[in-house]
């Protein structure tokens, strides 16, 4: 139990550090967001009217008080899920904007990540099981080849072939103009149609890392003494491959997978931009290009917290999967 308690304290500590850094970093940057907005509204050359500036400050809810008071206010707001008002999507709140974008990303990227991990682990295991056979060559060389293709090129190729030439799937967006978000059959099938191409793009490149990692780890653990002894003990090949190879080889990948799942919250900027998909990645890109500080900050915080939570869960899982870790921590 000491292992799990220690992991939890570590998690709380990192979480606090992440939240605090998220508060500090924008304040250490030069420039004032309100001035930036006014100068954008008024044009570069004109002078800024102090009253205008004050109005915008009030509208945006720019904090007052010293840094420490601001920090306390910020902590309180974060705990309540209040991230302020978006500058670009005024008067919508940041929470509202994220609430709009998050489901799209979580469903598209989350589902493809899980499928990628499962497919990649299975293919990697198969390649290692049939090491140096044709299966191994096809899997290893094939995934290395696909891994070298630029992702955006692959995505554009998919759009060109399946959306523009064959017209099987829509080329952009999360749903068509004819349907509006809701639990209707029309909307769901429409959203599914729109998600096929981005999902395929993600699924082509997603498993590659898992394949290579799993294969190499497993080849290594099958070369160790305990696996050779299992051969000498006359265990069936499949039993050796699973319990003496894959069971050990998957351990480092579990951590990698948890981190990958955690970073889903931040969205994948590239795929959402290419397919104009209304998820977190696109929201992040827009917030950065329009200097929407509250939105940006909230997305960063979301990503960080996502990775931290995922990491914590991975640590817990690892404690169950690898008995050596528990021991090493307590000793």
């Amino acid at each position, binding site marked *: 139990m000491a292992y799990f308690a220690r992991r939890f304290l570590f998690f709380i500590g990192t979480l606090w550090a992440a939240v605090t850094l998220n508060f500090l970093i924008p304040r250490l940057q030069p420039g004032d967001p309100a001035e930036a907005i006014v100068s954008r509204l008024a044009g570069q050359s004109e002078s800024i009217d102090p009253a205008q500036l004050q109005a915008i400050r009030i509208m945006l809810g720019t904090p007052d008080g010293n840094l420490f008071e601001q920090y306390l206010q910020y902590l309180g707001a974060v705990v309540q899920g209040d991230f302020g008002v978006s500058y670009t999507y005024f008067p919508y709140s940041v929470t509202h904007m994220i609430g709009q974008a998050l489901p799209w990303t979580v469903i598209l990227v989350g589902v493809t990540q899980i499928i990628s991990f499962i497919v990649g682990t299975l293919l990697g295991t198969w390649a290692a099981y049939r090491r140096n056979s044709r299966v191994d060559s096809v899997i290893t060389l094939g995934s290395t080849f696909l891994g070298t293709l630029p992702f955006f090129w692959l995505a554009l190729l998919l759009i060109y072939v399946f959306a523009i030439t064959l017209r099987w799937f829509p080329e952009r967006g999360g749903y068509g103009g004819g349907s509006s978000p809701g639990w209707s059959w029309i909307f769901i099938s429409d959203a599914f149609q729109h998600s096929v191409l981005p999902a395929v793009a993600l699924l082509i490149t997603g498993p590659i890392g898992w394949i290579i990692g799993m294969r190499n780890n497993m080849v290594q653990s099958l070369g160790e003494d*305990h696996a050779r002894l299992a051969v000498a003990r006359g265990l069936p090949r499949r039993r050796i491959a699973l*319990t003496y190879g894959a069971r050990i080889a998957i351990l480092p990948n579990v951590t990698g997978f948890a981190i990958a799942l955690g970073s889903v919250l931040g969205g994948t900027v590239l795929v959402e931009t290419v397919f104009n998909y209304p998820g977190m990645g696109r929201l992040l890109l827009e917030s950065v290009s329009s200097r929407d500080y509250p939105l940006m900050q909230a997305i960063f915080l979301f990503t960080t917290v996502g990775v931290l939570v995922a990491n914590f869960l991975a640590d817990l899982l690892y404690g169950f999967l690898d008995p050596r870790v528990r021991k090493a921590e307590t000793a």
Partner: protein
Amino acid sequence: MTLLQVENLSVTYTPRDLPANRAVHDVTFDIDEGEFVGLLGESGCGKSTLGNAVLRLLSPPARISGGRVVFDGVDVTTASEDELRALRWTDLSTVFQSSMNSLNPVIRVQAQFADTFAAHRIPGDVTARATELLELVSLDRHVLRAYPHELSGGMKQRVALALALALRPKLVVLDEPTTGLDVVVQRSILTRLAELRRELGFAVLFISHDLGTVLEMADRVMVMYGGEIVENRTAAGMLHEPRHPYTRGLLGSYADPRLPDVQVTYIPGRPPDLSRPHRGCLFTPRCPHAEDACREVHPELLPERGGLVRCLVAQEDRLPVVRLGAADAAATIGSHFPATGALTDPGGTPDVVAEAVLSVDQVSKRYTTRRGLRTSTTDAVRDVSFTLHPGRVTALVGQSGSGKSTIARLVTGVERPSSGEVRFEGGSGPTVRVDRLRGRALVDYRRHVQMVFQDPFSALNPTRTVAYALSRPLVNFAGLRGTAIRERSAQLLESVGLAPAGQFLDKLPHQLSGGQRQRVVTARALAPDPQVLIADEPISMLDVSIRAEILELLGELVRNRRLAMLYITHDLLSARLLADEVLVLNQGVLVERGPTRDVIGAARDDYTRLLLDSIPNPFAPAKRSGDASVVRSAQPGG
């Protein structure tokens, strides 16, 4: 009846970027049912490769390039995987070296037994059967619930042995089963193995570089050199009348430390490079009896005096005659191998003892471990006092876990004692209280106290040259700059016998042999010109044939440079050879101390006697079996 027949077996390694290497060449031998056969040789002679070939466990780039292995009527070399699986473990099982990695780390011991039974469709209660097997090797049933990392090395090795006997095989291949274990643990495992073999009647192929163990355990011994069997005869025959010069050389590295005069020898030179073609006898470059014909003609393995030997000189009966009885063997064994360097024990009364450079005064070290809310304390060292003097070697002997390494850490200032004082009196200034040093003062102190580590393979950075390894202490402690560093490095290498130094300075560790690496580690320890040298098991990872060489070097350095040495070991023979004074440590307490010859020759404490009795002793094989109960009671759980 013949159980295993190996006929003209050759194994070749064909690595991708290196020349092919014939690790095993034209090996032929038989093992009868119930026979205990030892396979002996230095590292790299092909003995493990041969064992793996017999089990058909070779993996690329190694492959059987000729000959066959027939086990109980089945040709193992050509059998299909299915035929082989039927044979495996039910008839032919194995224990790998030291079992650090031979159990699956993520499943419990019980599951590894269950796997084995399931694979061979053995019905019945796994727990009951496994418990019974663990009892065979004197382990408690709670071990079944443990994961491998929760067991000590000795316990893991017992589990591996229990696993090997699970299906009552006809032949067990034991590949260095006790290498890396403590002498006392080794003794208890070997004793149990001998008893089990008498009870169960399986045959054994026992692979080891440890001649003492092999000769003591085996009915018949095969000696391998350069991938070939060079001698094959009964253990008793080999002990009384070794016929191959290499066997004689190996025997020379053994002696009974209790005898009044102890002398060991070593075999100069290195084993042959098997990736290059050779003419004549492979042992010629290291052989004291080599003749012109040996350089031209490759000798055959021919019957000779009741055994087989591959040596022209022996076959033509021109070897110097030795016929030794067990009683006087140890005393004179060194003499029939006229090696260049023979190491005799320091013996005699020491010269006038100089002032102590380092005093350890009533030192105790207590470790507190916290698990949840409970705390437990361990007294690693209790009330230990001793002094180190220039030009003298003090040996600290004891089993693993006896507190030897803790004392080394206290002396080097890595840890502080819970009570007591460590004083360094060798500096130019006033006495240094080592137990109070910190920061810069500690760094200054360490130039005077240097260490030689156990494992020369991991004590050197594999990506840096010898010159770099030596330059670090020269820059940090001696403050040398520029070309002076290289000059001083060369001098250091020559002082440890690596001459000409130019050949070694730019080599990487992997290009050196184990003995050469240990010399480099020693040179590095000498670089800051220390007054105290702490050698922690400096020879235990080295081949038996070269151990004496390193001991000789350490002995010379101590006497020529007036170093004070703390020699930490569990090996009493080496302590006998090197040390002036011996301290015996048992569970953190000094139980016996005194001049080496008195302590080892006439031990008074039971624990010292236990350590002495645990040393594999081929010269007195008969008295072994009686000691078993003593050994086991002293080492519960092993």
